[in-house]
C-alpha cells in the first residue's frame, strides 16, 4: 500500500520492470528434452490410436510395427545397403552437379555477352520441373546408378549455376576496381575478388542441393531400379506394406538431417571470416 497525502496527486506507480524470467527450457539440454518429448508423444498417440482401432494400421502402419521391421532390416543388412546405395547416388549427384553448375555460373562472369546470350536458356531450363525429365533420363542412362546420378545432377546443377552466376554478378564492384587500379588482370580479379565473394552464396546452395540430390536419387529409383530406399518405398507401397514405406521415409529423413548438419559444419569451417565475432572488437 502507498500512502497518499491529502491534496497531492498520487505519484504514478512505478511499475516493477518486467524481469525476464530465465527460461529453464531455453538451453541446449532443455530444447533437446522438449523435442524428444514431442517425438515420443507423436509416436505414442499414433500407436495408441492404432491399438484402439481409431486409425487403420493397414493405411498408416503402426510405430511398433515400424520399429520392429526397422530392427529386422538393420540386422539383415538390407536397410543399410539400400541406404548406402541411395546416399551414394545422392552425394555423387550433388557433388558433380554443384561443382559443374558453380563453375559454369562463375565462368559466365567472364563474358557479359555470353551471359546475356544464355540467360533466357538458363531460365527456360530452370522452369522445367526437372522431375519430369526422369523418364527420359532412365531411357538414356539405363536403370542403374548412372541414371539416378544424372537426375540428381540435373536438379542440383541448375541451382548452383544460377546462385553462382548471380553472386558473381553481385560481387563488390569497388573491390574489383581496387584490384584493377593495382594493376590486376581479369584472371586476378576473378580469383582474388569474384570467387571468394561468391563462396558464401555457393555454400548456401549446398543446403538446398543436398536435398535435391536425394530427390533425384529417390525419384530415379521410383521409376526404375533394383536397389535403394526409393525402390524399397515404391515396392512396399504397391504391396500396401505401410510399415516398410515408413522405414524408408524415416531413414531418408535421418539421412537428410545428417547431411544438413554436415553442410553446416562445412559452412562454418570454410568461411572463418564470416564467423569472426563482434565481441572481439578492438578499439584504436
Amino acid at each position: 500500500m502507498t500512502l497518499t497525502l491529502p491534496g497531492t496527486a498520487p505519484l504514478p506507480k512505478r511499475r516493477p520492470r518486467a524481469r525476464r524470467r530465465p527460461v529453464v527450457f531455453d538451453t541446449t539440454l532443455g530444447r533437446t528434452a522438449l523435442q524428444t518429448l514431442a517425438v515420443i508423444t507423436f509416436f505414442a498417440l499414433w500407436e495408441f490410436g492404432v491399438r484402439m482401432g481409431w486409425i487403420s494400421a493397414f493405411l498408416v502402419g503402426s510405430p511398433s510395427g515400424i520399429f520392429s521391421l526397422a530392427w529386422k532390416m538393420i540386422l539383415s543388412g538390407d536397410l543399410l545397403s539400400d541406404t548406402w546405395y541411395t546416399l551414394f547416388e545422392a552425394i555423387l549427384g550433388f557433388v558433380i552437379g554443384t561443382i559443374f553448375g558453380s563453375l559454369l555460373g562463375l565462368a559466365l562472369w567472364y563474358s557479359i555477352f555470353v551471359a546475356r546470350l544464355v540467360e533466357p536458356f538458363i531460365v527456360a531450363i530452370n522452369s522445367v520441373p526437372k522431375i519430369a525429365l526422369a523418364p527420359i533420363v532412365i531411357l538414356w542412362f539405363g536403370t542403374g546408378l548412372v541414371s539416378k546420378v544424372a537426375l540428381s545432377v540435373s536438379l542440383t546443377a541448375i541451382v548452383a549455376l544460377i546462385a553462382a552466376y548471380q553472386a558473381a554478378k553481385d560481387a563488390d564492384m569497388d573491390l574489383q576496381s581496387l584490384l584493377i587500379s593495382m594493376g590486376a588482370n581479369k584472371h586476378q580479379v576473378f580469383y582474388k575478388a569474384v570467387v571468394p565473394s561468391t563462396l558464401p552464396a555457393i555454400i548456401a546452395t549446398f543446403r538446398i542441393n543436398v536435398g535435391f540430390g536425394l530427390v533425384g536419387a529417390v525419384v530415379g529409383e521410383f521409376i526404375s531400379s533394383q536397389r535403394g530406399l526409393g525402390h524399397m518405398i515404391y515396392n512396399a507401397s504397391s504391396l500396401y506394406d505401410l510399415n516398410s514405406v515408413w522405414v524408408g521415409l524415416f531413414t531418408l529423413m535421418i539421412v537428410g538431417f545428417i547431411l544438413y548438419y554436415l553442410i553446416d559444419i562445412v559452412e562454418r569451417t570454410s568461411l572463418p571470416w564470416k564467423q569472426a565475432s563482434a565481441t572481439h572488437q578492438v578499439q584504436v
Partner: protein
Amino acid sequence: MMQTRPVQLSVRNVRKSFHGKAGEVRVLEDLSFDIHARDFVSIIGPSGCGKTTIFNIIAGLIEPDSGSMQYLGQEIDSLRGRVGYMMQKDLLFPWRTVLGNVLLGLETRGIDRAEAEGKAREYLKQFGLAGFENAYPKMLSGGMRQRVALIRTLIMDPDILLLDEPFSALDYQTRLYLEGVLKDAVETYHKTVILVTHDIDEAVALSKRVVVLSGRPARVKVVHDIDITAASPIAARSDISFSSYFHTLCAELDIQTEKTA
C-alpha cells in the same frame, strides 16, 4: 613559397560525360592541372562535381572522352598499376586477414611471398598493427581498418597516392589521428598525394596546394598554394594563416551544396 619541383603528372584538357536517363551529363569539361613531384594536392569542389571521376580516369578505371595525361613528360593512357587508390570505404577484403589484405597488391604483382610477407610485417609493426596480422577486418575498428588500407596502399610503393575522402567515414578524433599518420607516412616514403575531400579544414591542414573545382561540369576554378609549415595537421590548424585560407576557400565554394555532401 614552395620551391618549384618538376611536374610529375600533368592532366590536360580532360573531358568526360556520362549517358544517363536524362541524356548526356557532362562531368568534366576541359580539365587541366599539374601535380609536382612530392606534391600534396587537395581537390575540393561542390559535391557531385566529378572528383571521383578524375581519380577513376587517372587510375585507368574509366577512359576520358578526350584529353591527355603526361607522366614525367611521357604521354600515358593511365597510371593503372602504379597508383595507390584509397577510398572512403576501406575496401578491405573481408575473407582476407589483415596480413592478407596488406599483401594484396604485392600478390597481384607476383612478388615472392616470403619477401612480401617480411615487408608487410615490417609495415604493420611500424603502423602499430603488430599482433593483428591474423585478425579479420570484421574484428577491427574503423580507424584500424583504414590504417590497414593505408598500409596496403603504401606498401606497393605507388608513384602517386589517390585518396578519395579516405577519412570521411571516421569520427573526428580518429580522423585527426589518421591525418597525422598519413602526413608522416607521406614524408617518410616521399610520396606524391592527390586528396579529394569535401572537408576544407582537412584540405588546408594537409595540403601544399588546393585545387578548387567549379560545379558540374567541373573545371579548375582556382589553385591555392597553402603556405603553412606546421609539423602536424593538428598544429597546422592553429597556424595564423589557417583561418584566412579556410575562409578564402569557403568563399570560392558553393557551400550550400556542400551541406548535402
